[in-house]
């Protein structure tokens, strides 16, 4: 092999390890969240992203530090991949003062100014107009940053989707709208809520370009995201990416899953984004069994550390209850 080929190869291997590390981190972190929920150390609503990891991992790959990210209540994965520390996220879920939102937000409201991570927005569709505004600010100042907004297919039938897409297209704003189409909004299957089942087809109504991608295939997602982010950054126009995916778990911890059958879930589980990625990469020789084991071990340690950190972290004193309502007097 030529030195260039070898270098490219090494880069590919490093990249694959990085991708897998992200996928595994999100998965193991959330599996642990479910356990901590049972142990009542996490409370409130807890929405797991398990099964959908390839979307966040692939989409966030091309983003830079100056770019903005906004997501929903199912955002642990996005936060972790964006770089929030597992410790700060776990502490947030525990409601501790060291959490990434000071413990105020919990699972549905992860935030990080440092990472330009704008939440953790728990009103379906609510983050979309905000994403338009984030991008508007960049457009007006010509920063070259893009804004990436994640939302479920359930949000597509909210009026805010419509208003946000029109505004972004009208004002030529650099927003990447990523629809995580997992087929269900709580218990409502897409076909029972959308008159027209292809989300991507909606985009034409706004003159917005669009692409559909297999959301279980992190390679495909990343490739699409790279193309799109580059174009959005250069052309300053919005773009809609529909990623077809599936959540393997219940909607939240309260959901008895009366609305879908086990066979359907099992069939999608066969397409696990992690297992298929590992299989493909090991078959190609890009990853080795040792790589995988090392990543699993490292992630396990990080998750343990995160839990330990969260456990040890302090509670905010009740005396501080009314902080963060408005600015504190200087």
């Amino acid at each position, binding site marked *: 092999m030529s030195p260039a080929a070898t270098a490219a190869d090494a880069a590919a291997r490093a990249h694959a390890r990085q991708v897998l590390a992200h996928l595994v981190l999100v998965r193991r972190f959330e599996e642990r969240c479910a356990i901590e929920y049972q142990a009542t150390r996490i*409370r*409130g*609503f807890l929405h797991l992203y398990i099964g959908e990891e390839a979307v966040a991992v692939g989409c966030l790959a091309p983003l830079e530090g100056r770019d903005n990210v906004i997501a929903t209540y199912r955002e642990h994965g996005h936060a972790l991949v964006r770089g929030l520390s597992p410790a700060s996220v776990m502490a947030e879920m525990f*409601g*501790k003062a060291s959490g990434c939102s000071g*413990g*105020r*937000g*919990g699972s*549905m*409201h992860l935030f990080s100014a440092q990472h330009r991570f704008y939440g953790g*927005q*728990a*009103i*379906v*569709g*609510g983050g979309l107009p905000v994403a338009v505004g984030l991008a508007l600010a960049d457009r007006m100042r010509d920063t070259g940053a893009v804004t990436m907004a994640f939302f479920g297919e*359930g*949000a597509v*039938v*909210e*009026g805010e989707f419509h208003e946000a897409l029109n505004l972004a297209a009208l004002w030529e704003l650099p927003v990447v709208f990523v629809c995580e189409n997992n087929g269900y*909004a*709580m*218990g*409502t*299957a897409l076909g*029972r*809520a*959308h008159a027209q089942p292809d989300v991507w087809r909606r985009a034409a109504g706004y003159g917005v370009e669009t692409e559909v991608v297999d959301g279980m295939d992190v390679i495909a997602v990343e490739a699409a995201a790279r193309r799109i982010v580059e174009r959005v950054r250069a052309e300053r126009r919005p773009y809609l990416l529909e990623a077809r995916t599936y959540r393997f778990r219940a909607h939240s911890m*309260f*959901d*008895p899953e*009366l*609305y879908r059958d086990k066979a359907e879930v099992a069939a999608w589980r066969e397409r696990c984004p992690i297992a298929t990625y590992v299989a493909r990469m090991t078959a190609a020789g890009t990853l080795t069994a040792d790589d995988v084991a090392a990543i699993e071990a490292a992630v396990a340690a990080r998750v343990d550390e995160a839990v330990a950190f969260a456990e040890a972290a302090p*509670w*905010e004193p*009740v005396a501080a*209850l*009314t902080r963060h*309502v408005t600015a504190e007097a200087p």
Partner: protein
Amino acid sequence: MSAASATSATTTTYREAARQALRAALAADPRVFLMGEDVGAYGGTYAVSRGLLDEFGPARVRDTPLSESGFVGAGVGAAMNGMRPIVEIMTVNFALLALDQLVNGAALMRHMSGGQFHVPLVVRMATGAGRQLAAQHSHSLEGWFAHVPGLRVAAPATVEDARWMLATALADPDPVILFEHVGLYGLEGELPEPGAPVDLTRAAVRRPGTDVSLVTYGGSLPKALRAAAHLAETGVDAEVVDLRVLRPLDLDTVVASVTRTHRLVVIDEMWRTGSLAGEVAAAVAERAFYQLDAPIARVCSVEVPIPYPKHLEDAALPTVDAIVAAARATLEGGP
């Protein structure tokens, strides 16, 4: 109260009672249908409507898209055109997306049309905090709705009201908003049999007393009753009034209570400023000023978006201790 005519009673939950109410309404009148997010296949976010889809089919137990303004407006239109829709807004937090249809639509239609059209719509929604759902999922905005002429607003706080308010609401020719506090669904209580539709114009004295009136509604009623029990241990005999109907307020019952006790504590999970408790306090101060032997006290939520951690959430919401303390203060103070 229908309890008077009861021949027996069964113990059940608020959730089950609410489900029975829906089932009975759907069975009784073909014009009635239930519509909202996840009322069908999912079984209802709070499991209230579980089983009804199988029983009544998808036309009458109608799952909607995530389109709060759209399906609430559809409820308005269907009601104007002869149906009796029960629209479930999953929680009051999402009702913010449908306020235009409720305020500019449902509430005004009769008046704007000079009485030609009316909107016999029932809207149910969960409300309140206490389950660590954090800032965007913990609102209590009952008082906003209670501000709007053209709406009737009620809050069942007992198993019996959960069972029987719906029928009265459906019989009302005008829009009725029913608030179900998320903390009440698991509540157990007596359901007198046979029951009957309750009067949707009257507050109810849930515990008679002579020393101080604790006036509240919805999810705060159990707290007020517990506070009254605590107070009784130290010889204070508190009367507990459940407003039940938030618009129009039954001030007669409240004023009658204050006229007996001369002291008033109003408990409300809304933030203090602009709370419904403030309205009750203001109205009593207007109508029964000379009956008051102490300033009216309010026990409301602290003025902070509801935080996620349990200890902070508890500290933000009205507590039994705070009610007890407020009641004591009305008895101790003096000019």
